[in-house]
């Protein structure tokens, strides 16, 4: 797809989604779309550091969780929710730069292992220190508007897609992809790998922190350790791989597909869907490394070829 066409398509999709709360009065539809939009944000954010810069983050939930924890605390204490979300993103980025500055100097699996460890340490710590369920005050529940959450989710998802699209066409994005291909060759070509990896990580975890803040704003009650669960990391990872890692549209397609299938399968087979997603992941990595985006491109090419031969006849 060309840049202008996909931008037009993106804007049209966002506009259509913006009218949904005006037309549809069903909460279950809005809740489902909210989940899709949250997943788009989280997957796109993972996609920046892992898909573009090639640094596999196995503790993305840590940054989602830090965003949720900070936002929830500040918001309940009386801060405006948007300010609280920005603070949550800042905390997430702070932790990310700390671990990135240490792990990025070493190549290989250190970053993956470091982020995995950070995620688990934070999950266990938060589970111990904040063991009680966090519930919104009665007054806040009384004034709860699902549409507000929905619009915030839409704005955030749109922002995440826009950030990745801008990055994809930029000089910095080019440098990140070079690092993913061959870090040493990138350095020797003049790409400052450490700085670019830290930039990718900061962008990625800022979005993850904002997504966590949205989670905290959305849920009436949850265990504070829940957003630190590795499930969030692997959701983001699976969605990105299913849709197409290192592409702009991949995580969007992947999120729609994944959330839909997950809800459907979870209703029918409870936890059995985890096994199905595991198999699906293996199948995609082995058979279709470009994900749904590649599948769509192949089908499109096939269809064009068919049409052309039909015309020639």
């Amino acid at each position, binding site marked *: 797809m060309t840049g202008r066409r996909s931008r037009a398509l993106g804007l049209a999709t966002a506009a259509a989604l913006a009218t949904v709360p005006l037309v549809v009065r069903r909460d279950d539809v809005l809740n489902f779309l909210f989940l899709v939009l949250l997943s788009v944000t989280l997957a796109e954010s993972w996609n920046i550091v892992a898909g573009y810069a090639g640094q596999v983050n196995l503790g993305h939930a840590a940054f989602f969780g830090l965003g949720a924890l900070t936002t929830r605390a500040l918001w309940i204490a009386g801060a405006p929710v948007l300010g609280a979300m920005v603070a949550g993103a800042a905390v997430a980025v702070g932790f990310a730069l700390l671990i990135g500055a240490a792990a990025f100097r070493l190549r290989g699996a250190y970053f993956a292992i470091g982020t995995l460890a950070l995620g688990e340490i934070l999950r266990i710590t938060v589970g111990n220190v904040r063991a009680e369920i966090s519930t919104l005050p009665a007054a806040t529940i009384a004034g709860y508007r699902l549409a507000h959450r929905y619009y915030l989710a839409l704005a955030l998802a749109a922002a995440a897609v826009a950030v990745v699209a801008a990055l994809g066409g930029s000089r910095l994005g080019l440098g990140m992809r*070079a690092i993913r291909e061959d870090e040493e060759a990138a350095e020797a*070509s003049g790409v400052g790998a450490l700085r670019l990896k830290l930039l990718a990580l900061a962008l990625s975890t800022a979005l993850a922190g904002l997504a966590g803040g949205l989670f905290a704003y959305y849920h009436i009650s949850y265990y504070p350790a829940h957003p630190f669960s590795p499930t969030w990391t692997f959701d983001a990872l699976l969605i990105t791989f299913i849709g197409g890692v290192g592409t702009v549209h991949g995580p969007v397609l992947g999120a729609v597909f994944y959330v839909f299938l997950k809800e459907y399968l979870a209703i029918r087979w409870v936890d059995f869907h985890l096994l199905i997603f595991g198999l699906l992941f293996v199948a995609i990595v082995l058979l279709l490394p470009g994900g749904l985006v590649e599948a769509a491109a192949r089908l499109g090419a096939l269809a064009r070829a068919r049409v052309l031969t039909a015309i020639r006849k």
Partner: protein
Amino acid sequence: MLEVRGVEAAYGPFLALSGVTLTARPGEIVALLGPNGAGKTTLIRCITGLLRPRAGGIRWEDAPLDRVPAHAIVERGIAVVPEGRRLFGAMTVEENLELGAFVPRARPQRAARLEHVYTIFPMLRERRRQITRALSGGQQQMVAIGRALMAGPKLLLLDEPSLGLAPRLVESIFDVLREINRSGVSILLVEQNVQAALTLSHRAYLLEAGRVAGEGSAAALLDDPRVRRAYLGPLAR
């Protein structure tokens, strides 16, 4: 001017360079010759900042280079065509070339240099939207040289640009190098193809087991019976 003085480098316990000293003056083509494992690639890695020397010093334009990160060395005007080309395989020809001009010093003249590279290698213009993994070895070598030229270097390092290429292609690549040098770029060339390298260069160093075993003008080395015996074989010329 590039000055390498007493450089020692090691991979773990293995000493790859023990006290290498050489210079490359502005406008020169200097060849670095020697058998496999002599330390030629190690020296290139030291100059480009990918490997830190254990002892000794490297200076470029009267400033030390040994603590400068690799990407900042490109900014100072030294570009490399690495061993094995090391292209970004999943990216297009043009993206690879663009990455050569990533450093700030190369930004302003990016478009002009791209045009220049396409003039030198018209084949690359035709294939600019193709991913480089799909190209032949010779075309990949052109991309690697083009990528280094995009940085607008004052000194170009090449690590075995002829490796795996057909003789006619080697000849045309060497012609290109001669042209690049005429435009004012100094060249430090690592080669196994001794005859071709000595024909192209002004001076050469012989590297053996991590030491400089000989040096001199290319013409003198071509006539040196020891060099002829060791590198060119009894049938040479």
